[in-house]
């Protein structure tokens, strides 16, 4: 009963939040911020556990898998643009992903966060399913990583446009690569607000960043551990 109610409530709140965001596209009205805040508030007030909520809501999380597969469609439609810009996309995603792994770990270690948190932070910049997998394989806590991934997405969609303005990045390709590499799906959502080319480049960058992080993290970590 609670399960079904949680599912329907989340969808309705999301619709409402999306409607508000369309009228007033401010960061603090992003559905990814407003809906979780309302749901968390609701759970506290009604003394409902997260497990009871997630029994229904996890069906939404499961939809991330077909949604990831759906990225094949823009990939197919814009394949010519991608081929034309393959060099800058591959090289920049590679540099960005390596920077993400190294900087997350170095900063977290410098602030003396405990090892579990550090390991959970390392894959935070890539899409949830991959980030959770990497987190588990290096000794982090996948569920905590999921939260860090969301925080990265949310903060990234705020910082992204600021960086774009600050560094005067006017090129559609560069904008897309920047948002997709650093802020996965949420960044890609933002990138589609810039235009469909930027959005598509961002989706591709997000996928490449996920693959690079998946394969490079086990190689980079031992080298990093020499310094920390």
């Amino acid at each position, binding site marked *: 009963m609670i399960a079904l109610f949680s599912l329907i409530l989340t969808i309705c709140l999301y619709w409402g939040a999306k409607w508000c965001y369309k009228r007033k596209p401010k960061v603090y009205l992003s559905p990814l911020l407003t809906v979780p805040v309302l749901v968390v508030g609701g759970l506290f007030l009604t003394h409902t556990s997260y497990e009871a909520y997630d029994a229904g809501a996890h069906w939404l999380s499961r939809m991330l898998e077909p949604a990831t597969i759906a990225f*094949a469609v823009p990939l197919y439609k814009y394949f010519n643009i991608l081929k034309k810009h393959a060099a800058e996309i591959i090289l920049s995603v590679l540099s960005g992903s390596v920077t993400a792994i190294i900087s997350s770990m170095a900063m977290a270690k410098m602030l003396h966060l405990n090892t579990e948190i550090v390991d959970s932070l390392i894959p935070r910049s890539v899409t949830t399913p991959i980030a959770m997998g990497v987190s588990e394989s290096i000794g982090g806590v996948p569920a905590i990583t999921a939260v860090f991934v969301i925080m990265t997405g949310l903060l990234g969609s705020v910082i992204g446009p600021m960086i774009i303005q600050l560094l005067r990045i006017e090129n559609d390709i560069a904008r897309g690569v920047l948002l997709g590499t650093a802020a996965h799906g949420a960044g890609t959502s933002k990138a589609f607000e810039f235009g469909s080319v930027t959005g598509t480049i961002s989706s591709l960058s997000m996928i490449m960043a996920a693959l690079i992080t998946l394969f490079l993290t086990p190689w980079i970590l031992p080298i990093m551990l020499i310094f920390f």
Partner: protein
Amino acid sequence: MVMFLKSIVQIILLCAFSLGMNQLVNWLDLPIPGSILGMFILFILLQTKIIRLEWIELGANWLLAELLLFFIPAAVGIIKYKNVLIDDGLYVTLVIVLSTAVVMACTGLTAKKIAERKEQRHLS
């Protein structure tokens, strides 16, 4: 109405495809998630015209447009770890903000540099 029904059928097809891919990854014991493998396979099927774009485009666009909805339960999961956030929340946020800014600057500038160099070569 027809569009709506079409979208629903296409989403169901994509979900079924996704389940099949998870099975395949399990069965072959591959180190990547089923969704990533599925994306590559679907892309190849589209390229080779085995699957036509019209069969899945509406459903795929709908899934992509509502992407944020699917992240919400994980974001609510934050309440399970409120101790982590109370103890380390400030530092964690600091790491995420600074690191994300550095990653963005690095990625964006690399792409910009390469694009500019390419343009120059075209002009000369």
